[in-house]
Each structure stands twice: as structure tokens, then as C-alpha cells.
């Protein structure tokens, strides 16, 4: 198959130390901290109360709104609290969290239905995927059912299964492809059926030879599922870059890949879809890579959602030196964690503890306009120009230079010889612009509400006058009657 090249990109050291470590099941922790927001969109609304007994896979919180996902109990036990607990997020802010004390039984909820998914139509499959709480497991955590439903509104020709895993350290998708290729292919075929797409392309970076070999064997049975080897270059695993590599088409600014007839799903998502449809089991655990120089032994673990990061690290033998930085996800785009007392969530592809040497914090120096960032940008933007504008507060200028097309991959920051925090400026500018949009929306809303109030007051005033006029007329009529009677 002919491949195309996306522009830019970088080659960070891969550090895939955990690539040959088989997936281990983490022993069940005593307490699980399950946040009601583990996805993009509206937070789920809790259904259980403190003191309730729950079974594994039981609904804890239902989804709210079109873009949301439900949350299920990762194991059986008792709900001991529903409170604010620190979210796995750089802000260190709290998020509503259901805390479950596990009973060690790990017994599944009754009435799980198994069904032949190929007898279902698109709506039925995406309804089941939605009810199972499945979100994009590559880390973006966008509700998968919404993406499967795009098959109804867009003519989809190709389903791309993203096995790129271009972030250093992470090996969870690699291990999944090595150990469970048949289940994965089954999940991919279910998604193909739901999207009514002609073919599925499984894209795997060439640094995962075992996964490629095993997936090829499993995919061989089906004509419409093909394994494609793509070069290892960050950010290959980004949706836009992956679509471009495989199809040669660039997703236009502000459009979806579905506009090109392509949908991209992560391999982990395909596995979760298979579990949900074949076994009727919701998403309650995921594969997490534990890595980084500060970890005694890097591993791949199957972890119940809601397990604290500290317990995951402990299981891997703790730290061999004090970590300088702890990340959820990979080192390029992962979320900085405030501490390890935060839970594993649906989007946690890895927890990485980096040493001081690996972090290598350098003092930023002035821009020498070397253009390295421009050469590395996979979106063809001018990071130095955007950063200069974001720095001086001229946000509209940064937007004019294409800030909204930036995917925050961090390639520019990675190559900058002056160590300028380029992507950090873009993240700041995007946040600030979002705040301004919210402010503007609120102002428009206020104007509408104030107008409605003025109209209401006018109406009330009019009604009052009419009532007064009516009373006056009645009084006069009465007076006339009395006069007529007395006359």
C-alpha cells in the first residue's frame, strides 16, 4: 500500500522498555476512586447513594446530554462516599468521585447479555457502545458511540484503527495487539459493520514488529481488514497525521475526518467495543503502561478504573529515585499530575515517573529565528510567530497565524534550541480564548434575558392599565344604572 508523508514531526527516543512485558492484572485495591467525569463532554449524573452495595459493572452514574458517557462500578463492594477528590489533571482541582470499598468478590452484575453483534444495526451497536461507557482510549476520551453514529450521517469508506502509539514509553496498545489479536480483529469487524465502511486499515508503527506479525496473522482471515506498517515518527498517532499518512488527504481546518469518509479509532477502543458487544460488559478496566526512569520496573498492567496511581506505582516496586515529574499519558502530550493520590481513568494510557535527568528543565533563551519549530510542525504552522503573539497578549494575531489548527503535539517545544515553551504558550492562548468565548456567550445570554424582562414588565404594565380601564368602565356603568334606577 502506498503511504504518504505528513510534514514535520520529530523522533524522540522511544524508551519502550515495557514493550516485552506481558500484561499483568493488578490485584484488586481496597478502595476505588471513580470520578464521574472521565470523558470529554458533560459529567455523568450519579445514580447510587452512600451505603449502596454495588456489583462489578453496575451503573454508578448515567450520561447526560448528547456528548457524555456513563460510569460503571469497576468492582463489587460498597459505596462509602461520594465527594470531591483530586482529578488526574494538572490543575489539582477536585472532581465529583464515587468511592467504593471493594469486597474482594469482584462479582459481575447479573443479566449481562451476549449477542451476535452482526445482527444489530448501527443505532443498536452505538447504543450498546454508549451504554457501556466506551470512550476513545487513546487518551482523547471522546465518547465512541458518537463517532460510530457518524456512519449514519456521513458516507464512511475507511475505518482506520490507530495502533501508532507514537508517544515514548507507552506500550499498552502494543501489548494489546501482541496478546489479544483475535479479539481485536473481532472488535474492528463489529465497528466496520456499525459504520458500514468498506475496509479497515490497522496502522502500526514499524517499531512494533511482534504486534505487526501477530495482527497480520489474525487479519489474514478477512479481506476487508488490512494491517499497514507506518514509519515511526511522532506524532504519527495523531488523527490528522494518521489520516494523511494513509490516504494522502489533509483534514481541512475545522472539519472532521468523517468529511473525508474516514473514521479513526484506537486499538484499545476496538477491544472495549468487542467486550461490550460480545460479553455485554461495560468499560471498567484498562491497560496502563507504568514507566519512566524513576520506576524500578516498567510494566503493563490491567488496572480497574479508579485505582490510585500511588497503588499502581507501589505494585511496580515503587521509585528507585525521587521522580521530578509524574505524568498521565506520554511525555509529549501527557497530563502533569499534581501528586500520585489521583485515580486511573478511562483515558490513562500510562503513568510515567520521570527523573530529573529525563525532564531536563532548561532556562528559556531568546528566539534566534532558526526555524526549527517550523520544520517540525506537523500542521505546517509558524510556531515562533504564534508564540510571539501569545506572549505579547495579541491573541487574535496568534489565531490569524493558525492557532486553532495547532494540535498541541509539542514537537516545536521538543526541537527548540532556545528551550522556548512554545506549546505551553499555545495551550495558554487556547485556554484564554475559550474563556473569552464563554464570556461572550454569557454576555449574549444576559442581553436576551434583560430584553425578556423589559418585555415582561411592559406587558404587566399594559395589563394593569387595561384592568384599571375596565374597572372604571364598570364603575361608570353601575353609576348610570343607579342614576337610571333613582330617576
Amino acid at each position: 500500500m502506498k503511504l504518504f508523508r505528513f510534514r514535520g514531526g520529530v523522533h524522540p527516543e522511544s524508551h519502550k522498555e515495557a514493550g516485552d512485558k506481558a500484561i499483568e492484572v493488578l490485584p484488586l485495591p481496597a478502595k476505588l476512586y471513580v470520578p464521574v467525569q472521565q470523558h470529554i463532554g458533560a459529567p455523568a449524573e450519579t445514580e447510587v447513594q452512600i451505603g449502596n452495595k454495588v456489583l462489578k459493572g453496575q451503573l454508578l452514574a448515567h450520561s447526560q446530554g448528547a456528548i457524555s458517557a456513563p460510569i460503571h462500578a469497576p468492582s463489587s463492594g460498597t459505596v462509602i462516599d461520594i465527594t470531591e477528590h483530586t482529578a488526574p489533571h494538572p490543575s489539582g482541582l477536585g472532581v465529583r468521585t464515587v468511592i467504593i470499598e471493594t469486597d474482594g468478590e469482584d462479582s459481575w452484575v447479573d443479566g449481562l447479555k451476549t449477542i451476535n453483534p452482526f445482527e444489530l444495526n448501527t443505532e443498536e451497536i452505538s447504543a450498546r457502545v454508549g451504554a457501556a461507557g466506551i470512550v476513545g482510549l487513546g487518551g482523547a476520551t471522546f465518547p465512541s458511540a458518537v463517532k460510530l453514529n457518524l456512519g449514519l450521517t456521513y458516507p464512511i469508506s475507511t475505518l482506520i484503527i490507530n495502533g501508532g502509539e507514537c508517544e515514548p514509553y507507552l506500550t499498552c496498545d502494543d501489548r494489546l495487539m501482541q496478546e489479544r489479536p483475535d479479539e481485536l480483529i473481532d472488535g474492528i469487524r463489529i465497528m466496520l459493520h456499525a459504520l458500514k465502511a468498506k475496509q479497515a486499515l490497522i496502522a502500526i508503527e514499524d517499531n512494533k514488529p511482534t504486534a505487526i506479525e501477530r495482527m497480520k496473522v489474525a487479519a489474514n482471515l478477512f479481506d476487508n481488514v488490512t494491517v499497514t506498517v507506518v514509519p515511526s515518527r511522532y506524532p504519527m498517532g495523531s488523527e490528522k497525521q494518521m489520516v494523511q499518512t494513509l490516504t494522502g488527504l489533509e483534514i481541512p481546518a475545522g472539519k472532521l475526518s468523517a468529511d473525508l469518509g474516514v473514521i479513526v479509532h484506537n486499538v484499545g477502543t476496538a477491544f472495549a467495543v468487542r467486550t461490550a458487544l460480545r460479553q455485554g460488559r461495560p468499560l471498567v478496566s484498562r491497560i496502563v503502561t507504568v514507566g519512566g526512569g524513576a520506576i524500578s520496573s516498567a510494566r503493563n498492567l490491567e488496572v480497574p478504573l479508579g485505582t490510585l496511581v500511588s497503588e499502581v506505582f507501589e505494585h511496580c516496586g515503587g521509585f528507585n529515585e525521587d521522580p521530578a515529574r509524574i505524568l498521565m499519558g506520554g511525555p509529549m502530550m501527557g497530563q502533569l499530575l499534581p501528586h500520585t493520590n489521583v485515580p486511573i481513568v478511562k483515558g490513562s494510557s500510562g503513568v510515567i515517573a520521570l527523573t530529573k535527568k529525563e525532564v531536563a528543565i532548561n532556562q528559556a533563551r531568546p528566539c534566534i529565528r532558526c526555524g526549527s519549530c517550523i520544520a517540525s510542525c506537523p500542521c505546517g504552522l509558524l510556531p515562533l510567530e504564534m508564540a510571539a503573539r501569545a506572549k505579547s497578549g495579541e491573541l487574535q494575531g496568534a489565531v490569524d497565524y493558525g492557532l486553532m489548527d495547532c494540535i498541541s503535539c509539542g514537537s516545536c517545544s521538543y526541537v527548540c534550541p532556545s528551550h522556548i515553551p512554545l506549546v505551553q504558550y499555545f495551550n495558554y492562548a487556547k485556554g484564554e480564548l475559550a474563556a473569552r468565548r464563554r464570556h461572550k456567550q454569557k454576555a449574549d445570554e444576559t442581553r436576551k434575558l434583560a430584553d425578556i424582562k423589559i418585555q415582561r414588565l411592559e406587558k404587566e404594565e399594559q395589563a394593569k392599565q387595561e384592568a384599571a380601564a375596565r374597572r372604571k368602565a364598570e364603575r361608570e356603568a353601575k353609576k348610570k344604572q343607579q342614576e337610571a334606577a333613582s330617576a
Partner: protein
Amino acid sequence: MIIAIMSLSLLGLGLGVMLGLAGRYLKVEQDPIVIEIEAMLPGSQCGQCGFPGCAPAAEALAEGSASVTLCPPGGRLLAEELAAKLGVTADFSGMDEDEPSLAAVSESTCIGCTRCFKVCPTDAIMGAPKQIHTVFKEACTGCKACVEVCPTECLQMHPIKVTLGTWSWPKPALAA
């Protein structure tokens, strides 16, 4: 002589009629810049700027007799937009100090007097006589009109809490 008087009178009459018609049909209701500025203001008529409503404030802004930083609910963003619109420079430094806050009713001290929701410009307070009132956070603009009329001081301004949805990265520290 008569012809001259007649023609001049006719001319005067004709032009007079034309002027009268023009005055009626081509009337400029208001300074257009005032209308544009008024559309930018929040429109809640809260009166925090010291003018009786958004329209008088817009007039004052257009005349240049008021500062672009006059509108607390509009905040710094509006001040910047106004400055750009009017082509003036202003000192925005004082505007970040007031952290955005919303009104909330303390249920233990509310006596159900109904005064607050009568003054609320956006109908953000619900209540009935002798019933505890409540503020709809989504509709509150933080104009403080209710705080001033509350007889028991149960209405207080509370800073808006940052959530995961509204948090964003701070600006990276400037290079040394």
C-alpha cells in the same frame, strides 16, 4: 415685481416642504456609534457604571466623557473591545483585581421579602413572598443590584469557582 415675489415665495415654500419631508424621512435617530456601542454593552441596565442604563452609558462613551473601563460586568474583555472601537488607550490594570463573582442567597437568613428579584435585571432570582429565594447561577451577571436591596444581608457575592471545565494553563513564565 409680483412675479419676483411669487417666484421667491414658491421657491421658499417648495424648499420648506422638501426640508420638512427630509426631516421626517431621512431623520438620524441617534448617533450610529452610540447604537453600536450599546450593542456591545451587556444590556442588563444594572447601573453599576453610574449611568441610569446601558444607552446613556453608550452615549457618554461615544462623547468621550466616560472611561472604557466603566462596565464591571463586561470586564476587561469588553474594556479592550471598547478601546479598540473608540480608538483610545486606557489603563486596564485595575480591572483584573475584581474577581468575577455571582450572587447567592444564604437560606438561613432569607426572609422572603421579594425585594431582590424585583431589581434583578436578568430575572435570575426566583422566589415568592415569605418563601426562600434562590439565584440561578447561569443567569446571574454579578451586577450586585440585589445585594444592595437585601434587608438581611443574606444575598452576598461569591467568587466563581474554577472547575475542570473552566481551568486553563497560565501564561508560561517569561524568559529571564
